């Protein structure tokens, strides 16, 4: 009896050790494989985590909400001169005003990029979304004018026009490139390996065409629409510098502190 008891105990101990070993192996494998994987799986991380990288705990994550507004009447911009481009003129029924300053009825300012400039500290290993971000060339204009995405996230550039464009990405931190794109041709698919702010995209065939692409290593950014509202969700507790960028009115910073599961509020006001 005593012998069988010892055998059973020994089996239990062995089983327990095997389970612990399996869990340990699983942990090691999950950490060791947190590197950019096969693109087909669509699961990549913006920046490879280090041994000291912290992961955001969703149970304590909060948010920062706010609005960006423009005070005063924006200047009237002259329409784009498309007289030399019959192809583009045909695509636009009336005069085209450059979409540099777009406001809503309550003064909300559109095309402002709001993002966490600092405060994330050791947090990292953010997953790159597998959805691509689209940038269209429509009626000889880029649409949208401002685009934001994460490092290694796919950017798809479409030419919906019956005319030729070239897409010139004038990046500095990433590689600068320039590609022709025929009328209604296949999409250009690209991504950026480094964070970079306000990469100008232009078309040298139609020099008024302009877009700005922002690339972040984290997911805490948003491009405002006409209501000027933004919300940066899933932020761990801490003190952050929130920065806004507008192509005409420039950059503003504010500091915001949030606790666990708190939503901080911040407003940005630009003056016309």
């Amino acid at each position, binding site marked *: 009896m005593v012998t069988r008891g010892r055998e059973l105990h020994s089996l239990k101990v062995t089983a327990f050790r095997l389970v612990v070993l399996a869990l340990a192996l699983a942990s090691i494998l999950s950490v060791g494989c947190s590197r950019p994987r096969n693109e087909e799986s669509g699961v990549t991380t913006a920046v490879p985590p280090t041994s000291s990288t912290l992961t955001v705990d969703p149970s304590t994550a909060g948010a920062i909400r706010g609005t960006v507004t423009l005070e005063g009447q924006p200047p009237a911009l002259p329409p784009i001169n498309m007289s030399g481009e019959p192809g583009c003129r045909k695509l636009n029924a009336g005069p085209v005003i450059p979409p540099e300053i777009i406001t809503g009825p309550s003064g909300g300012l559109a095309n402002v990029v709001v993002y966490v400039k600092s405060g994330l500290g050791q947090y990292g290993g953010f997953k790159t979304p597998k959805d691509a971000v689209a940038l269209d060339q429509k009626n000889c204009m880029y649409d949208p004018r401002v685009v934001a995405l994460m490092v290694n996230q796919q950017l798809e550039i479409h030419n919906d026009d019956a005319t030729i464009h070239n897409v*010139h990405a004038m990046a500095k931190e990433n590689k600068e490139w320039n590609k*022709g794109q025929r009328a209604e041709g296949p999409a250009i698919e690209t991504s950026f390996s480094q964070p970079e702010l306000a990469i100008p995209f232009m078309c040298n*065939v139609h*020099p008024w065409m302009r877009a700005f692409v922002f690339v972040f290593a984290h997911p805490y950014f948003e491009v405002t629409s006409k209501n000027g509202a933004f919300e940066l969700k899933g932020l761990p507790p801490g003190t952050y510098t929130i920065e806004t960028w507008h192509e005409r009115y420039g950059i503003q910073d504010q500091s915001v502190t949030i606790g666990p599961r708190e939503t901080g509020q911040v407003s940005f006001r630009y003056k016309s």
Partner: protein
Amino acid sequence: MPDTQNSRGLYRFALLTASCTVLLLMAGALVTSNNAADSVPDWPLAYGHLVPPLVGGIRFEYAHRVLAAVVSILTFVLAVWVTRSESRPVAKRLGWTAFALVIAQAVLGGIRVLVGHPALSATAHAVLAQIFFSTVVGLSLYLSPWWQKDLPQLDQAASRPAFLLATWTTVAIFVQLILGAAFRHGAFGIQPHLTGAGIVTIMVIWAAQTVKHSFPGVREIRLRVVFLHATFGIQVLLGVAAYWAVLRAGANFQPSATYVTLTVAHVLGGALLLAASLILTLSCFRLIRPSSLVAVNSTGARLAGPAAS
């Protein structure tokens, strides 16, 4: 003695090549001012074809390439014609130098398209264009009937300083063109170019006065000084106007007709000013005895022995 009819034909062909080079410079300036330098992302083909869709900025870029091909062919014909017709080694060397320069310029243009980095590649392309233009202008002058006739040699004590001053003025104008090209293509700001303008102003006035006073009765020198003054004066005005247009354009993404016209005119004015100074310098060299101990004949070859009176 060279065949007069053939040499006149050769001279006129050299002038034609120089004139087409002016058009090519203008086409290049139009590409830059219209922000069309990257409108055709491939080279030597254009969107994979010999002739691309001619829309927007592609028209400027493609016209520039076509003109470059025309000037290359003209320069090749000029080099061959000079080699077959001319006995003077300098003429032959200048002809083939011009051809080598235009080929190098075409390759540099291709590098600009394929590699980018306009601050470096476009500036180098612009500077080499002026060097090529100067070579063709110099060759044209060398092939001119005026250069080849027996001209009285001027034995003036003040001749050498005037010649040196004219030479340094040409160098200063060339450096100023480099600074202008570097500013235009984003290598650095306007300040060096403005400083250079001040230096060139002093040198042009000083050189022109010195040369005029040194050779008061020499008609050819007087005409060349007038040409230098005229191009310089126009270029200063164009410079002020072009800078005003640049400031007014600001961050406007679409170049206006005023901006394009003034900046292109200023680039052309710079090339013509350089040509005017070069012509004056070479003319001084042609007319002035290099030293009291050496004379030259009408072909520019040095004569042995003491200087002839």
